[in-house]
């Protein structure tokens, strides 16, 4: 039986491994880019998300042999987009209009976690922060 549920409910069930065969939502999860890069949703709540990736310079390395900053940008954007999708209704969509990243340290190999939280929510524009650990 088809069961149309909210994005938040769908993602919670997905994270908990409790999706039923008929469960669906109007957004596409897991996203194609997250399948390509093998990113996982670790934690989800209203306006909050943590996404992980097993980063490895053998796959994601740049010319300095560290994990490429673009991968961190994508990880953060996935996390922020997933957090924001929990607010989206069926007749709405969303787009990132700004992303600023500060790199504190190089990374070589291991699991990275990007955790996003809201700074300010408006009707049209919502500001987020995301920490990559």
């Amino acid at each position, binding site marked *: 039986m088809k069961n149309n549920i909210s994005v938040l409910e769908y993602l919670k069930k997905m994270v*908990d491994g409790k999706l039923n065969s008929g469960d669906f939502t109007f957004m596409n999860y897991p996203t194609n880019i997250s399948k390509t890069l093998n990113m996982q949703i670790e934690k989800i709540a209203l306006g909050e998300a943590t996404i992980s990736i097993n980063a490895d310079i053998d796959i994601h390395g740049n010319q300095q042999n560290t994990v490429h900053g673009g991968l961190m940008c994508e990880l953060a954007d996935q996390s922020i987009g997933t957090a924001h999708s929990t607010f989206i209704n069926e007749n709405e969509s969303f787009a990132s209009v700004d992303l600023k990243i500060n790199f504190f340290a190089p990374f070589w190999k291991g699991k990275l976690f990007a955790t996003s939280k809201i700074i300010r929510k408006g009707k049209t524009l919502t500001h987020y922060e995301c920490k*990559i650990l």
Partner: protein
Amino acid sequence: MNVKFYDENKKEIAYVTSVVMTLHGEKAKGR
């Protein structure tokens, strides 16, 4: 669910801020 899945003392690799625009009505339909 408050399961600790990583060490919160783990080194911070990057800090990001972002602005997301919610699209309503016709703009939400896209292509």
